[in-house]
């Protein structure tokens, strides 16, 4: 139970009918480590995050997340595992448009009892409100439908959803791309504080290399990926 948060070895991934997109011999991310992953567009950053998040499965190789071999799990077990242990901030935010901001943030707790452990429904709502407030979304946003928010606001709601219930691993795919510089600074400060406080492992992808200094470690995907240049 004390292995790395993410342990990838001999990974080979390709889309059906296409050559390998990712060929990674080894990548380890220690527990509690905050890792900055960067690379040019199309280098396979989002695909790698989807593999680590169990959304995709590799053609071969091993991806162990928190000591669990993801591809050995059935799809429904992978969904459960993701819900229990991983907070995902997608590049496209992926909010449920008709649900309110609060309902979107609380969504992982509906499907994962492990994630909501120790939280009553009132406590969960308070925690969601705290996260939203810290991200600059006051109480007046709580009951608005997600579809009524601006892009930047949606991105912050997606971040709050990933943070709720303090998952062991947060995967953030360019979460600051739609934020202005002030909001981005506040967002990153909150993300770092939350991860530090909960001992959460953070895997953060961005084009913005100036952010790398905020992280424990910076990884260039191009240097890891033997198939670099084939496009994603």
């Amino acid at each position: 139970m004390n292995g790395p948060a993410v342990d990838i070895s001999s990974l080979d991934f390709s889309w059906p009918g296409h050559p390998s997109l990712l060929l990674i011999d080894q990548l380890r991310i220690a527990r509690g480590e905050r890792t900055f992953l960067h690379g040019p567009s199309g280098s396979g950053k989002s695909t790698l995050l989807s593999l680590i998040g169990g959304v995709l499965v590799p053609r071969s190789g091993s991806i162990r997340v928190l000591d669990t071999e993801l591809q050995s799990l059935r799809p429904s077990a992978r969904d459960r595992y993701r819900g229990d242990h991983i907070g995902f901030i997608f590049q496209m935010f992926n909010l449920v448009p008709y649900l309110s901001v609060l309902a979107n943030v609380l969504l992982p707790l509906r499907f994962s009892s492990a994630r909501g452990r120790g939280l009553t429904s009132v406590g969960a709502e308070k925690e969601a409100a705290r996260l939203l407030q810290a991200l600059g979304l006051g109480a007046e946003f709580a009951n608005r439908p997600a579809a009524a928010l601006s892009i930047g606001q949606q991105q912050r709601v997606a971040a709050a959803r990933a943070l709720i219930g303090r998952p062991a691993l947060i995967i953030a795919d360019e979460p600051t791309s739609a934020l202005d510089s002030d909001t981005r600074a506040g967002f990153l400060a909150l993300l770092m504080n939350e991860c530090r406080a909960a001992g959460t492992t953070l895997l953060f992808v961005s084009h913005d290399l100036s952010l790398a200094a905020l992280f424990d470690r910076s990884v260039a995907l191009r240097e890891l990926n033997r198939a670099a240049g084939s496009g994603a």
Partner: protein
Amino acid sequence: MFRLALQSLWNRRVAATLTVCAIAISVALVLSVQRLRTGARESFSNTVSGADLIVGARTGPLNLLLYSVFHIGEVTTEVSWESYQKIAKHRDVAWTIPLSLGDSHRGYRVLGTSDAYFQYFRYGSSRPLMFSSGTPFHDLYDAVLGADVARNLHYHLGSVIILSHGLGDVSFTQHKDKPFRVVGILAKTGTPVDRTVHVSLEAITAIHEGWETGRRIAVAPPKAEDPRKHDLTPMRITAFIVGMRSRVMAFTMQRAINEYDKEALLAIMPGVALDQLWQLVGVADTALMIVAAFVVVAGLLGMLTAILTSLNERRREMAILRSVGARPAHVFGLLMLEAGILAALGAIAGIGLMYVGLVVARPLLEQHYGVFIPAEPLSGTEGLILGAVIVAALLSGSFPAWRAYRNSVSDGLLVRA
């Protein structure tokens, strides 16, 4: 999950409302057809009880049953008074009720009969006729009204009514010279009795004095008081109901009447004739139920189409739910729940629609077809029909749910470069 399903449906409220409407209409139709079927059967079956034979001039058994008991259709031939008397006085006959039809009052049939009608006529489970007010007729121009006639035409004891010659809602030939006085109003029976004006056989003869040619002779119309001094024994009657001293004698009597050589008569057993009626209407009955069932299928196919159409748009939504921990079973359950909610709302709205339709159509059905549809709570059969509709809705909902179940989480989340 239930709340999520409700929120999802609310998000697609226009399509969901249309789907609910389609299911509601189909449920209302199938329940109405069922209620009409049972209502019609019960109405017919309850109309005459305890009668062993119905005798009329030779015609079809169904025709005789329909015009004599249900007052449906026209009478073409009649029975002579002599034949009636001969049969009525037979030693095996316990009682008879003579029936004379042909006149009307503001759309309601007038029945000429005798006191035996109030004494021996039975309906439902051998229930006798009861008076809500007044008494049977004593004087020549006394009339006893069925409950609906009195209620709908706002008549009460002492009201004076004019009978019309012939049938129809509006008649231009009226027996204005011989007005009748209402002396009795019968309690509601839920049978054609409620829509009948009852007078004595003698009164029928009296009002037709001077009408021997089928219309009133214009010269010197007889005075209303005159007939009491005449012999008012009718020459002919429409039909008569026979009660035997023992039911087993009904078969012998039926054969004897059907072979009666003085006059071409027909005796029918009401139960047997009703069975023939059900056989006849059974085909239409089944066809109606099949059409109603197909309307339900069409409604459910509408729901299936709506869910399937939305499914493609909702692939991303399902994938988002999977990405935050929902399992394929949750997605399946969510879509099944949505189908179940749509079906349940459709069923509830359909029940409401059926009752609204019942309130609107009931007086018309009673008035024009003599079919009494009770506004009762849902019967066991109707409950089964509703259950079947909901189960069918869940089965049809399981198809899109299964498709969503099989979609991978990456299906709706990833946009490939």
